[in-house]
Structures are given as structure tokens and as C-alpha cells.
């Protein structure tokens, strides 16, 4: 079959790879209908995520049709139209049973690597390095889905493939930021980043009752899209002082909840950006935490900062003093998707959550390397390119 493979730093190509096979009784094989580019893929494409091998299939956000079912699968049958969570959860370890699915104990087949890097291994994720389990990714014609009874969800009739696609990862990630960030009715919430995850975090905050939601980015099309489809206020950080703007809009307090949806390759227009770039390129820090720093400084005393963006290792000039002295709660997580996906599919079906607008481009698998280049450079107004192997 054809698949999109990582071949080295900033080098993707469509290759012929062996078809996936059932490796466990609780697996299913899914024929891909659609997958999407994700900002976190850019980190591994750019060489910032270690433990990638040339020939690895990437992609982790997808919707498709079940074409083969393992003997122990109980909730799915051939022909089911499913959206699949990016993280694989076994459904029965302590973490899964406590709705902390991305921390699953039983789905990372390389636990020693994660334990050496982080002190504990995460759950496995599709197409996201051998540190995260080395599972093949979903930018292919077919993908194997382990523990499918827990990670694959039947798409309700009336929800189209494109709308369902983003419920795989970006929608639950955004929702988690607002939910675990503790957004309450009456809160003011600021969201850094107007990509798909940031937009969904802002929408979640609105649906959870936030009084005001303010999204921050620099790309005009994304700011406009967020204002129009999500309904949040926006700030162009290249046009104003974000901290001052937030203080002015919040009576001098600062936002109650700050959600960072940018990640390890953050941009800014200040001198710190150059500093962070140099240190990251020299590998004196692995990540550029620009937006995290800004969120911590902007947050009101006693507020919460939730880090949704992907970070791999260590950062420099982390304002720990502000965390302590302002009494902040700082949280972060990879997506506990299984916790939210059924509820989110219902909300999409009910028209409360619009996701189809995120799909600004639609391409075939053969065009995927070009689509990632466009996505990386945010050219042609690209927010998400949807990759359709059937095209």
C-alpha cells in the first residue's frame, strides 16, 4: 500500500510499504477515508522529536472504515465508519479507568525509552516516534488499530467524514484544555494559538460557560476564522502588547484560565524569539516556550495555565517564580481523547461544534508532502490539509 513516510529532517515521501496485519486479537484494520496534517507533526518532520527512523509512516488523526476485525473485538464489525483516537488506550489499566487515557500503561511497546526521557512512559500514539511506541501512522491506505473497542468510535449518521475527522485529536485536545483547565461560568479565558486545537479550545471554553474568550495569534486568516466560526475575541500579537491588552480587557486582573495551544516551535516578534531560536538550534534547549512564558505572566493571580502544545524536553528561562509567587496552577497533558470523543461526536451531530471549516485544503496521498510544506509555511490560508487516500 501507499503511505506517507518520514525520510529525514524536512523530508517526506510517499512510499510503498507492507499492508498492516492484525497483530493482536483486539485489533482492527481501518481503511483510511481521511486524515489530516497536525501541527505536532511539524515537530517530528523538523527533527525536534527524537527517535524517528527513516521510513516511519506518520499521521495520527483520522477517520475510516473497518475492513478487518480481530477475534476478541466486541464493539465493531466490518463496515463500521469510525473515528479513531490518536492515542491508544487499553481501557483497563488504572490510568484508562481513571480517564487519563494518554498515560495508558499497556500500549507503548518501547516503555524503556519514555521512562528514560520522562521518568515514565506514555501510552502509544500513531505515527509519532519510537519513544511513543513506534506504531505506524495513519497517512496510508490502511492502518492497524490496537484495542479498537476502546479507541475507535462509530461515527453517527448525519456527521460527515470531514467533521468527524477532527474529533480524532484536535477537538478533544482543545476540549481537554478548557475542561482540565477548570473553565467555569463567568471566567475570562485566553487561548494562545488559532490553529485547529486553539480554535477548539476556545470553542470549548465558550460552551463551558466562559464569559469572555480571547484568542491570540498573528496569522490574519486564522484570527478571522476564529472570530467568525468560534465566536471568540481575537488579538493579533504583532499589532499590540498582549499582556497590556489582556490586562485592559480583564479589569487589570488577567485571564482566569490561560490555554497554550502553540507548542515547541512558538514564534514571537520580540528579541526572546531570536534567543530561543538560537538555543533550540544549538540544542541547548529542546523547545521554544514563548507562549507558555507569556501565558504564565498574563494569568491572573491564583489562575490556571494549561499547556496543550507538544513539548519534548527541556526549556530555558522558565518563569517558575511567577508560578509560585502568583499561586498559579500549571497543568498539561497529551490528549485523553477517549474521555471526550463520544460526547464531542454528539455535540457535532447537534450542531454545537463546527469543525468542517478547519479543512481548508483537500489533497490526495500523493500530494501529502506538498500539503505538509504548505501547512508548515501557513501559505494559501492553510489551517488543516485533509489527506484523502481515495482521491
Amino acid at each position, binding site marked *: 500500500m501507499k503511505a506517507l513516510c518520514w525520510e529525514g529532517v524536512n523530508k517526506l515521501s510517499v512510499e510503498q510499504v507492507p499492508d498492516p496485519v492484525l497483530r493482536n486479537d483486539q485489533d482492527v484494520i481501518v481503511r483510511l477515508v481521511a486524515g489530516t496534517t497536525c501541527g505536532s507533526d511539524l515537530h517530528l518532520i523538523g527533527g525536534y522529536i527524537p*527517535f524517528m*527512523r527513516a521510513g516511519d509512516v506518520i499521521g495520527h488523526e483520522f477517520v475510516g472504515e473497518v475492513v478487518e476485525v480481530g477475534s476478541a473485538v466486541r464493539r465493531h464489525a466490518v463496515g463500521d465508519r469510525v473515528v479513531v483516537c490518536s492515542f491508544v488506550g487499553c481501557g483497563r489499566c488504572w490510568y484508562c479507568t481513571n480517564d487519563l487515557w494518554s498515560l495508558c500503561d499497556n500500549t507503548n511497546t*518501547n*516503555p*524503556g525509552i519514555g521512562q528514560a526521557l520522562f521518568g515514565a512512559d506514555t501510552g502509544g500514539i500513531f505515527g509519532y516516534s*519510537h519513544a511513543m511506541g*513506534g506504531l505506524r501512522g495513519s497517512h496510508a491506505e490502511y492502518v492497524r488499530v490496537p484495542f479498537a473497542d476502546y479507541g475507535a468510535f462509530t461515527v453517527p449518521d448525519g456527521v460527515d467524514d470531514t467533521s468527524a475527522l477532527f474529533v480524532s485529536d484536535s477537538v478533544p485536545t482543545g476540549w481537554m484544555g478548557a475542561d482540565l483547565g477548570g473553565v467555569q461560568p463567568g471566567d475570562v479565558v485566553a487561548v494562545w494559538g488559532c490553529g485547529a486545537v486553539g480554535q477548539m479550545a476556545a470553542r470549548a471554553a465558550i460552551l463551558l460557560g466562559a464569559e469572555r474568550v480571547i484568542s491570540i495569534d498573528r496569522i490574519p486568516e486564522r484570527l478571522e476564522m476564529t472570530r467568525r466560526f468560534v465566536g471568540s475575541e481575537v488579538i493579533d500579537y504583532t499589532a499590540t502588547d498582549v499582556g497590556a491588552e489582556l490586562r485592559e480587557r480583564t479589569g487589570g486582573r488577567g485571564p482566569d484560565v490561560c490555554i497554550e495551544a502553540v507548542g515547541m516551535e512558538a514564534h514571537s516578534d520580540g528579541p526572546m524569539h531570536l534567543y530561543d531560536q538560537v538555543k533550540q538550534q544549538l540544542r541547548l534547549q529542546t523547545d521554544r516556550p514563548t507562549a507558555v512564558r507569556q501565558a504564565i505572566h498574563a494569568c491572573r493571580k491564583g489562575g490556571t495555565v494549561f499547556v496543550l502544545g507538544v513539548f519534548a524536553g527541556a526549556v530555558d528561562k522558565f518563569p517558575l517564580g511567577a508560578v509560585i509567587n502568583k499561586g498559579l496552577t500549571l497543568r498539561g497533558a497529551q490528549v485523553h481523547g477517549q474521555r471526550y470523543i463520544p460526547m464531542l461526536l454528539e455535540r457535532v451531530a447537534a450542531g454545537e461544534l463546527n469543525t468542517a471549516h478547519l479543512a481548508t485544503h483537500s489533497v490526495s496521498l500523493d500530494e501529502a508532502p506538498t500539503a505538509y510544506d504548505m501547512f508548515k509555511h501557513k501559505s494559501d490560508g492553510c489551517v488543516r490539509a485533509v489527506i484523502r487516500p481515495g482521491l
Partner: protein
Amino acid sequence: MAVPPTKKLFATAAGFTAAVFVLRTMAARGAEPDDVHRWLVVTVQRGPGDLQPDKLPTPLQDYGDRIETRLSPAPGDRGTEIAVRFRQPPPAQSASVGARITGDDPRQGLRLALREAKSLLETGEIMRADAPSTTRSTPGGKLIGLMSRRADGEGVL
């Protein structure tokens, strides 16, 4: 996309840095006699009454009398702690970095058996990696392949 040579160099360096970090973490675990006799422990999401030391899954049963096994309830309803260690501690040099890279540390096998037993008790199966996980053979890929082969028997248990 053309890749500037410096960028490729830095990225390659990053990969090796990560690999070295993992190896240093391995090396940081000392090889004192006390360490090789330390209990390896996992917590299983099963009630203490569900498990018996002599009826644990096959990967651990295969060790027979060569290992000691200890079961205890985890606090806060977090299941059952299963601890194992060799009855006869392996020699200290078996925990050297070299032995662990070549796969000659007997505790790697025991650690793997413990993880597999936990997965069998909780899910009824041991999740297998995709095969082949990748289709290209490069020097960097071979290094990561070696680390992946050792990774299921390594870690902080």
C-alpha cells in the same frame, strides 16, 4: 524540501543527544550489589484477592523458583503491587551498560516478564508492535532499532 546541511547536522545531533541521554540514564543506574537485588515492581489494576503468587501469568511462572514474588494491596484502591526479584542476585557486572546494550542483563528479561504479566492480567493480551515498524535501514535507524529492541526490558521499574 531542500534541507540546509547545518539544519540536518543539528537535527542528527539532536537524535544522538537523545540517544546519549537515554544511555546516560541507563548508566546512572548503578551496578552495586544492592541494585541488582532491588525488587522490580508494577501495580496491576486488579484487586488483591484476584491474584495469587503461584498463579501469575506465564511470563512470570516460567521463572519458577528462580524468583521471589511479593503481592501487596496498593494504597487508595489502586490495585495490587506485584514485586519480583531473583532469589540468587545476578552478578553486579550483569547490570553494566555494556551487558544491557547486548541484552545480557538477566533483569531485562524479568522486567519484560513483569510488564507482560501486568498487561495480560489487565487486558488479556500483550500488545505487539507493528511489523515491520519501518522499511528503511539507515545508521541512525539501526541505533534506534537497537534501543527499541532493548526498550521493553529497560526502564525505571
